[in-house]
């Protein structure tokens, strides 16, 4: 093991080997943990500026990070076998909770997404971001790969049942992410290229059909993306202002707390979905490159960890967690820079918002569990 390589008495080495021992005992992957910590730390610095020095908001974010870390550490200790066996139950629980939301959910900002459990507001759709890929991986685990047509039908059902419920809330962004998380599992399982193309065509047709059933604001967002300047003060405002923020930042940025777009409220949702634009404005292209490199490190390490896993369930689930994380980042960056339509996808570990941090960190907890327990799998 790694810690055995440190044999001399150097204090640094003793400390490092001690830390490695602790990490091993905690089943935590050191490099991944460092990558996540740096990303979250950068996020806090940006949030302090984006929120106009709103310390309570910062404290809430820190608390959520702490909660996320505790959950991550706890999940990391769970054995992959238990995770695998728990998958259908977790998925079932998620479905039940989504039905409960549909029945008695808490309406906030016109959408019924939350379950009000006393002091805790809980979005069951967040749970599904993990439960759906787990279920898909569980389903494929015992079956020969690549999956056959019948398997695909079953997987489609597994994915689309919760997606339908979430889309109905309505929460299109999360529905898309859940779909992506499940689809990534299917992709990693070795689905034939021909089948992928057919599925993509089907998805396009489904999207066109879905457009007809969209809520007004959802359709508007999508159409506005195609021509933002037509509604400079209406729906196009988000896109225009975020591009102005990013573009005016230039290479070096305007400086921390000195972005006029962010500080003067021109940039909407600057602490949540559009925080990427704040980084672009205040830290410039260099700041964004640093952020993207942090993400690249986290994702690369995650894929490496997934590839090391010996069983199909672990590999599929681990790979899905890594790739879904990437999908978050790329969609958010694309949306803020005007490459993809504005859908409510937060920038993971940086955007302000409760459930998302916890979900992301518990995902990485699962990844660590899958990796660190791999010897037990034999």
């Amino acid at each position: 093991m790694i810690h055995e390589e440190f044999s001399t008495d150097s204090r640094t080495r003793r400390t490092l080997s001690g830390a490695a021992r602790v990490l091993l005992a905690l089943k935590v992957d050191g490099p991944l943990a460092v990558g996540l910590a740096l990303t979250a730390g950068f996020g806090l610095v940006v949030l302090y500026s984006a929120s106009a020095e709103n310390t309570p908001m910062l404290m809430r974010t820190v608390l959520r990070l702490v909660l996320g870390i505790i959950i991550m550490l706890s999940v990391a200790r769970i054995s992959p076998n238990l995770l695998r066996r728990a998958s259908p139950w977790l998925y079932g629980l998620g479905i039940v909770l989504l039905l409960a939301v549909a029945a008695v959910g808490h309406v906030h900002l016109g959408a019924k997404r939350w379950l009000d459990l006393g002091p805790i507001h809980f979005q069951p759709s967040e749970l599904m971001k993990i439960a759906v890929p787990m279920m898909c991986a569980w389903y494929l685990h015992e079956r020969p790969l690549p999956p056959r047509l019948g398997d695909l039908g079953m997987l489609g059902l597994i994915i689309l049942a919760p997606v339908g419920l979430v889309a109905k809330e309505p929460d299109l962004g999360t529905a898309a992410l859940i779909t992506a998380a499940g689809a990534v599992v299917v992709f990693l399982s070795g689905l034939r290229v021909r089948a992928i193309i057919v599925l993509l065509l089907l998805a396009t047709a489904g999207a066109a059909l879905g457009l007809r059933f969209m809520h007004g604001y959802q359709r508007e967002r999508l159409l506005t993306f195609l021509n933002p300047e037509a509604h400079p003060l209406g729906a196009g405002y988000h896109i225009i202002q975020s591009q102005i923020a990013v573009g005016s930042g230039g290479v070096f940025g305007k400086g921390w707390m000195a972005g006029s777009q962010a500080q003067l409220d021109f940039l909407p949702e600057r602490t949540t979905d559009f925080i990427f634009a704040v980084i672009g404005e205040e830290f410039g292209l260099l700041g964004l490159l640093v952020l993207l490199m942090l993400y690249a490190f986290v994702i690369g390490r995650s894929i490496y960890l997934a590839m090391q896993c010996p069983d199909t369930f672990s590999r599929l689930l681990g790979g899905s967690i890594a790739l879904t994380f990437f999908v978050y980042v790329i969609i958010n960056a694309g949306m803020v820079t005007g490459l993809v339509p504005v859908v409510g996808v937060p920038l993971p570990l940086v955007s302000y918002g409760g459930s998302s941090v916890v979900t992301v960190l518990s995902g990485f907890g699962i990844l660590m569990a899958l990796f660190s327990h791999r010897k037990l799998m034999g």
Partner: protein
Amino acid sequence: MRIKDHWREQRMFNRRAWFAGALMVLSVLAVLGRLYYLQVLRHQYYNVLSLDNGVRTVPIPAARGLILDRNGEVIASNRPTFDLDLTPDQAPDLKDELAHLVRLGLLQQSDLPQLMRTIASHERFDTFPVRLDLSAREVGRFAVRRYEFPGIDISSRQARWYPFGTLAVDAVGYVGTISASELAHLNPAEYAGTAVIGQTGVEATYEKYLHGTNGYRQTLVDALGRPVRRPGALGKELHFKAPIPGDDVVLSLDLKLQRLAEKLLKGQDGAVVAIDPWTGDVIVMASSPTFNPNLFARGITEKEYRALIDNPRRPLFNRTLRAQLPSGSTVKPALALGALTDGVIDPHQKVLAGYAYHLPGSAHLYHNANHEYCGEMTMRTAIIMSCDVYFYRLAHLMGIDRISSWLPKFGFGHRTGIDIPGEDPGLVPSRAWKRRQFANPSQGEWFPGDTVILGIGQGYFLVTPLQMAHYTAMLATRGRSYEPRLVTGLRNPRTDKIHWKRPVLDGNLTQISSAAWKVVIKAMVGVTTQPKGTAYWEMHNSTYPIAGKTGTAQLVREGAKGYANEGSYHADKTLKQLRDDAWFIAFAPANAPRIAVAVLVEHAGWGSTGAAPIAHKLMDAYLLGPNGKLLAHPGRGPFSEPADIEERVTAGVDPRMTAEQRAAAP
């Protein structure tokens, strides 16, 4: 049933992972390309957009220049006023707030329809006044309830203020709100933040100098347009440009004299213009009745404007520049000078002038005023007594062509070129002019009778009070024409340095001999000193010699085209109220003239009784010191021009006079 092949699945997963990695790299490259486009290629463009977003440029209007008289008395100044400004965007319930303002007595219910139109014509995020010039009490009443009026606030600005109200309004003019058509001709950058513009008088002519250069201040605003209190790091790029106040304008007017003139005219319709003959400086310019320019400066209401327009005495009508009337007998000195110069008449030849004159071969009689009898007249006595019959004959001897060439030489029939707008040219008739007026050639023919009545300043001939004063000044200087002017200098308000403008000499009647001048001016002195003089009773006790001439004009306003009543103006008693406008012109001291005055009093009776006393009192006030002695430097004030201009008048003679002209001085 297929068998699970773990190695194959591992390899497949790895291939898919690498494939996914490649897709990820591609999509990240797409984002990086986009970032390069936004942040490097288009950085300048978006930077400008972000500045436009948050930086609001607030104009700072320059202080309008003051207007001073020759004594340094300020006749147009600025005072702070308080307005109610509205920003509709920030007023959630506009109608309610306006209704509340009505309840507080800060708005009138009747103002609301107009106000709603004003609001509709502005952008929602504009800020504009809904109520001008709050009193201190009203400011207080609003201030304590300010929190009830989101989007409405008190703003302070500098407003034009005429501390003496109506005084000299015809010369100074007034400022008024910039109209849409004026806005179209203005440079919007120069006038951003300026509410008013000079409309008439000196305020209009010297707008360019009075206005100054507006400055601006850039402030940071947030997305709702609210100013950012502590811009911090964002504040470093904000610019500030201080406004440059407008120049102060120094007038030739003497407000002490102006006050007196307006007081003497009070209750009558008329005009007074007094000119310094050696510079063209207008000392007095008064038109009666008058009006308060502060109404326009603060924004006149429809009702107030109606009242001014509907007043039959026409207070807005600037009589000094625009009343076009027959000169009456005041034209006689000009005709006499013309006739003498052209050799038409021997001034010392005695002419028997009876009750009336008739043209050779005609039975029509042209009577003296009041059907008096003149007797044996020389030119001198004819001017002193204002004998009409003598001048009927003189006009006939001269003929229309000589007359219509001489009168413009004395400044008639064209604008004098005074430095304020609105002047009317008057009218000097001629054969060609009359032909143009009538379509029928037989009517358009010039008749000898038309010429005869010109001899006493009746008929088609029309003059303005300003032209009269200018003409009198030319008589005083023996033919020099200085362009009348109100503005003598511009003062830089920061350095207090005055840039003086040179008087403009735009004509000199050198062809008139000094002998001719001597005859005519002596006669004009006789008007006030000889017992038979038409102004003897009003002037004979003067301590200094006055050269004057009375005139009585038929009241014919603008467009006298159809007027051809052959001089029988005294025949029809029922029209008396329309005829008896009194003129008096004079300059003094006659031997060293310092002031030339023209007085017009409408419906005042004869020129001597109606107008002469006003001229006399003005000349006394101007020329005499407190001890009743002639002042060495009359009209000199701290803001009158440097002495060299004044020194030109030494012992009553312009140093540039020829020896001959000097000798001709009475």
